[in-house]
């Protein structure tokens, strides 16, 4: 119980830190902040419920006025801005990512996490984000989606990184991934 709370709080802090640290921007021409990577990681490492709790806790602190969103944004204004759908979608995205890794059994933890991140962090998150944008801007969902689609390549990259990180995590701390059952038989200690 206490460990769960600590993990949820620490991952909420991770989501915040990943959006604030300039060194971890994923530069490929345009700097992409790693905040949604934090959301994908929270879902993929902690699982659906605790991952969603971590993202929700992060969002709560943003609402309470802490400038934790990428670019130092925060406060209640975030929740009426055109990106509100994305912000409010964070817990749902983490939940969906966690749900995917918990229910789709794949041999490779990294592959499961990567695909889970595509499902939760891209499919679900963009659906909510585009809905929010459509609502605020008064445009149709399709038009809103066309506008946000430019960010999808960057998020595909983040999903791939999530997969690689979880793959590495499954090797060094397999007990941390509650959803990942090490397949029976002789353990594979290759690195």
């Amino acid at each position, binding site marked *: *119980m*206490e*460990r*769960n*709370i*600590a*993990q*949820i*709080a*620490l*991952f*909420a*802090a*991770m989501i*915040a*830190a*990943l959006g*604030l*640290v300039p*060194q*971890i*921007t*994923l*530069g490929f021409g345009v700097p992409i902040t*790693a905040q949604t*990577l934090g959301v994908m*990681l929270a879902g993929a*490492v902690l699982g659906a419920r605790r991952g969603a709790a971590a993202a929700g*806790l*992060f969002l*709560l*602190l943003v*609402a*309470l*006025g*802490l*400038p*934790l969103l990428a670019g130092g*944004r*925060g*406060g*209640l*204004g975030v*929740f*009426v*801005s*055109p990106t509100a759908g994305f912000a409010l979608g964070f817990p749902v995205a983490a939940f969906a990512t966690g749900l995917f890794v918990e229910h789709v059994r794949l041999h490779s933890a990294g592959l499961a996490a990567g695909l889970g991140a595509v499902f939760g962090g891209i499919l679900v998150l963009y659906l909510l984000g585009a809905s929010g944008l459509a609502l*605020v*801007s*008064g*445009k149709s969902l399709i*038009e809103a989606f066309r*506008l946000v689609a430019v960010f999808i390549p960057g998020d595909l990259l983040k999903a791939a*990184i999530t997969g690689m*990180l979880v793959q*590495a*995590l499954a090797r*060094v*701390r397999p007990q*941390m991934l509650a959803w990942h059952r090490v397949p029976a038989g002789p353990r594979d200690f290759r690195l």
Partner: protein
Amino acid sequence: MISLTSPVKTRAHHWPAGLKLAGLCLASTGLFLTGSMVVHVTALLLVLALYAAPGTAFFRAGMCGMRVVVPFVLILLVWHGVTGDWQSGVLITLRMVTLIGLANLVTMTTGLEDLVEVLQHLTAPLGRLGLPVHLLDTAIPLVIRFTPVIVERAGTLAEAWRARSCRRPGWRLILPLTLQALDDADHVGEALRARGGPLGSPQQEP
């Protein structure tokens, strides 16, 4: 930890936070219900007046906080301009700017403690339904405490990287960062448990 609360003390700092939030909700709902241009322009001017009332320092800080909406304003106006419905484009942009401005105003004039208090009031009924909302009292300070710790650690990791490589540090720093965070979580969990943490059922609290 830097907060978005304005250091310039205004009279609104002393108003009850719940009242400000209720006002914000009412104003937002009202603006969404009306399609009148006059009401929207008046509302925006009113919000600007509220920003200007406490003095230039407050006004400048407020406008700084509004800078992030500029790209959205441009996108919305161009977007509606291209599709040819200027009228609704201007209306929607006005509404967005007013609402964000008003919400930021509440954030700027309300301290973290006041908002946490409102949060406790709002979540109290949920607690009676059996949701573990009392855990928030532990979780919120933990996040506030550990965010700067993780940011600092990422800086240290980046420095260590730069001392050993001429390539720029990137996502590779995230694995050690995550591992350290997970280990920290174990230690914090143990520490909370050792102190008989406030994490049992809410009835156990004195």
